[in-house]
């Protein structure tokens, strides 16, 4: 076979350069550039004004060994992911399944559950304070308890996750509900004819057909867990038991503190964790395509 040399016309090259070039430029300037800059800065001690000084892995050592909020934040991010993934998301699915059965007033339940989704998490944070405040909060007033829900670092992360979950459940529910409506009823009928009970029909037939929806929900859940920020920031600026990695990055870099090197090191840790999920997700996708 003769080797064919493909020749590009000037027009082809122009289109190629514009088409690819723009994409690459955007990609490099808004994604890879800042990412690499963060990684680079994480090895420096820089206050944003003076000279940039290379200090190697010092920042990583400091944050792991001597910065108590760091481990608290890692723990909270993991808890957040676990709670959304194992409690809120399954509960959202459960609500969707119930609503799909056309209960009486299902429209009403549907709206009630979906309502919180239109609120930003910062607003959910304000609402949470009205509910949980130890002095004037609804919860203590109604139950007669005297618990410092938001101040006690042993419990505050849990009650805040419940508030965040309140919104997440509605979000997940509406996605699953749409997915369930799209499931061909014939499948369920066929399963019933084959003698499957309700539970079997759901787990063996309906749930597997929801696979594309599951992937979307999984991705949303992971993203929500890693980007969680506004609710704790609205409550107490993400301190005292409500630390999250995203908050620590902001606190160190954006605030007057300007510990840019140190904050970048925390951002890199968050990047590594996110990368773990992204890589797992992408490799799964590519494997399927093959």
């Amino acid at each position: 076979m003769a080797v064919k040399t493909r020749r590009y016309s000037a027009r082809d090259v122009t289109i190629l350069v514009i088409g690819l070039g723009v994409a690459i430029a955007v990609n490099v300037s808004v994604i890879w550039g800042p990412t690499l800059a963060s990684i680079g800065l994480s090895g420096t001690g820089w206050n944003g004004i003076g000279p940039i000084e290379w200090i190697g892995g010092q920042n990583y050592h400091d944050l792991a060994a001597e910065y108590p909020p760091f481990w608290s934040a890692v723990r909270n991010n993991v808890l957040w992911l676990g709670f959304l993934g194992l409690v809120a998301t399954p509960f959202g699915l459960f609500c969707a399944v119930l609503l799909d059965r056309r209960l009486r007033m299902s429209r009403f339940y549907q709206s009630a559950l979906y309502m919180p989704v239109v609120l930003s998490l910062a607003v959910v944070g304000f609402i949470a304070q009205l509910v949980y405040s130890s002095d004037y909060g609804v919860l203590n007033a109604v139950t007669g308890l005297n618990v410092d829900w938001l101040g006690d670092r042993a419990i505050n992360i849990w009650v805040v996750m419940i508030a965040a979950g309140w919104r997440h459940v509605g979000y997940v529910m509406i996605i699953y509900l749409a997915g369930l409506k799209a499931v061909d009823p014939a499948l369920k009928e066929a399963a019933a004819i084959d003698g499957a009970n309700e539970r079997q029909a759901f787990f063996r037939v309906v749930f597997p057909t929801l696979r594309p929806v599951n992937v979307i929900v999984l991705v949303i859940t992971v993203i929500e867990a890693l980007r969680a920020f506004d609710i704790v920031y609205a409550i107490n600026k993400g301190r005292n038991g409500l630390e999250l990695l995203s908050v620590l990055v902001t606190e160190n870099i954006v605030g007057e503190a300007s510990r840019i090197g140190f904050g970048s090191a925390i951002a890199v840790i968050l990047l590594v964790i996110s990368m773990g999920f992204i890589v797992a997700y992408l490799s799964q996708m590519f494997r399927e395509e093959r």
Partner: protein
Amino acid sequence: MNQRPPISRRNLLLGTAAAFGVPAILAGCGSGNPAPAPGGSAGSKLGTVTIGSNASDEIPKKSLETVVKGFTQATTRINTVDHNTFQENINRYLRGTPDDVFTWFAGYRMQFFAEQGLAVDISDVWQEIGGNYTQAFKDQSTGVDGKQYFVPFTYYPWAVFYRKSLWQEKGYEPPATLDELTALAKKMKADGLIPIAFADKDGWPAMGTFDILNLRTNGYDFHISLMGGKESWTDPRVKQVFDTWRGLMEYHQPAALGRTWQEAGQSLAQKKTGMYLLGMFVAQQFPEADRDDLDFFTFPEINPAYGTDSIDAPIDGYMISAKAKNVEGAKALLKHFAQPSSQDIATKLDPGTLAASSKADTSGYSALQKRGAELVSKATHIAQFLDRDTRPDFASTVMIPSLQSFVSKPNEIDSLLASIEKQKANIFR
């Protein structure tokens, strides 16, 4: 609502937002909105001076506008930015395109930026206005190089506030020593009151307690040196401060980490708590009619060697940015701010503040303002509050979490101090 320790403002906003369910407050902060020149005639000889202001609340904003209106040598333009946003972005602001004159804080916070070359030396202005200020105010306006960079405008003292009517009814007397304070707290407890109102959800109010305990126990010089990173946090003297604090903890309002200073202030107003160590702005939490019932005493003596010679009294004022386009006009404006008459206007409009100038007319002061001025004039040393006396990164990323951790676990002092010391070493290197 008037101006206050830096961080409180956001909380004020959050509180308001929560109350009214306003959603977009976080997004809504910031963005300068240039106000048209409130003063200055067209024929001003010194051109236009721009002012970067963090006075985003109604009262301080009006107060600044009124004061600037009296300045006729140049046209002025005020760019108001949300208080907290201004503060958080100060680094970028000063390196970017800052206004000629900007609001800032005295002491270490001023020195930090002066040292980085971001402010203009105004020693020549001070030669003219120096007579208006006491030495303590001049010291707080002086950079590490001995030059002045700051013009003090207003300030407010920290003290222990209480309601006169409640104290009269129960027969309480302001304590003069720590033992008397403890005895008083015990008595209040027996009377069914929570002795000391306390809140630290926002992280900064506990700094006030630490400051005053350290000033009383170890004196001003040690405090400033500790803030400057020159002393060890594992020093027995620091431990002594936390030990004293732990001893008082049982008289503090419990569940402080879930409470804002506004809520604690409310509890004082409602006579549920007996006293409250806070800045003079606590008066905001009192309805107009009850404000005359509010009184205070300075935190009692702990170590006779220092008595009650120091207090926290954060000073707000103005500086000129290094990139100012109209330095002449800016200096003229600073001289205007240094005028006792300008400060009188501000203190009249904003009763939570006192005039920094020693020549200001105090006859228009409210009873509380008069007492505040008296308290400060008696103090030999004036500290600026922990987050203004030390590096901002140390205050916000180390001290806030550490003090909150102390409040929740007052018994773990040694490990806490060891942790602060290690983190301090990482920051002050």
